[in-house]
């Protein structure tokens, strides 16, 4: 799994594999590989989702500076 994978593409890939396996058109060897891959993807998504530090709200100023922004 390449490093630059986005959360969305990982989730999409995961969904594709689940549907593929459910279609029953995959032989067992391939299915096991796909299953392993899918579990990795699920783990990747979970980690990205739950372990990632929350983003801080930002404001892009007129000087093109990205600053922290707190809505009052």
């Amino acid at each position, binding site marked *: 799994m390449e490093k630059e994978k*986005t*959360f*969305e593409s990982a*989730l999409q890939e*995961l*969904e594709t*594999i*689940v549907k593929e*396996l*459910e279609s*029953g058109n995959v032989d*067992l060897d391939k*299915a*096991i590989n796909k*299953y392993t891959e*899918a*579990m990795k993807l*699920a783990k990747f*998504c*979970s980690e*990205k*989702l*739950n372990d*990632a530090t*929350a*983003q801080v*709200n*930002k*404001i*892009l100023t007129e000087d093109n500076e*990205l600053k922290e*922004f707190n*809505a*009052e």
Partner: protein
Amino acid sequence: MDKEYLKISELNNYIKNLLDGDIFLNRVYLKGEISNFKNHTRGHLYFTLKDDTSRISAVMFQSSAVKLTFTPEDGMNVLVSGRISAYPAQGSYQIYIDKMEVDGLGALYIEYEKLKKKLAMMGLFDENHKVPIPKFPEKIGVITASTGAAVRDIMSTIKRRYPICEAILFPCLVQGKDAAPDIVRQIKRADAYGVDTIIVGRGGGSIEDLWAFNEEIVAKAIYECKTPIISAVGHEIDWTIADFVADLRAPTPTGAAEMAVPTVLDINTLLDNYKIRLNRNIKNMVNTKFIKLRSLKQSFILKNPMSMYEIKEQKLDALIENINKDIKSIIVNKENLLNNIKLSYTLKNPMELIKDKKVKFEMLINTLKLVNPLGILEKGYSLVECNGKIIKDSNDTKVNDYINIKLHKGKIKAEVKEIMEDK
């Protein structure tokens, strides 16, 4: 009697105090037509409000004028509110306007309907130009005022639902006549900056407050923006032009944030669901294969391996039989062929092969005989030679020459006695 003379300023100030103290004059609503309009460089507006018979001076200071949603001009009918006070230096009274709007919402409404129709004709509302909103954005651009409920609602909703998403505010004016160009500018900026989704909007307000979102330039900027845009202007019931152009319309700013991002909880549930399905599936698959394997193991052939051998034996026999049959038929064929050859006419009459040749040969010999020069001697002619040459003329020889006469059989050596010429 001494008269007390007042200074002019004293009088004017007295009158000013009188006017300022009047509670009715503190809040006056007027309608009239603008004339003598002057826009001072410092942003204050000076003009006269008039109707058919009367007029009053009017001032609108910069702090109030910036909130205008239109550019006032002579001849415009307006509704204003403000207070009446005097300007002592001029000895005049005037209205100090803090709010002004174009007379009649009807006018705005007509403008709105006209623009809506025009933009619809131009295809700005076409459904097939709209792009889907990304389901799992990593960056969201928020275009609204940096203060107020709208920005707070949007930012906090995004953070609460989907904290891994970065929300970036592109602050802009959301009302007043400078708002529309400012919104356009920030839409272009956010589009160029690179975000997954843009939310553009503001909180609720009057139709004038929301007017910037009914401007043609804003509609066009939304249309031309490549990043998917969610509009969130005012409340549920407020439909602005921007809402028609946007890829998705949210009823409120909070609603826009909810449409822009999923919740972590939803995704976790989805992931769990995927995992359950994956496990169930692979288990089913292994089970099916296992059952198949077991039934294969119990198949007749695997249980009775000797039967496999028996079948092969039988097949071998059949093959041998076939081979024997084939060989026999080949031999018979060859034998027949040999017999045919043996019985052939030529082999039985070998002389036939040379008969023709013999006849031909004899013919050739006869022909040769005919042309042989010596053949003529048989008939009684002779050849006469003298000095090794055959002679045909008596003058070719002389008396006393020896000549050889060749006969059919044998030779005669003779001496010439006399030469006789033909007469």
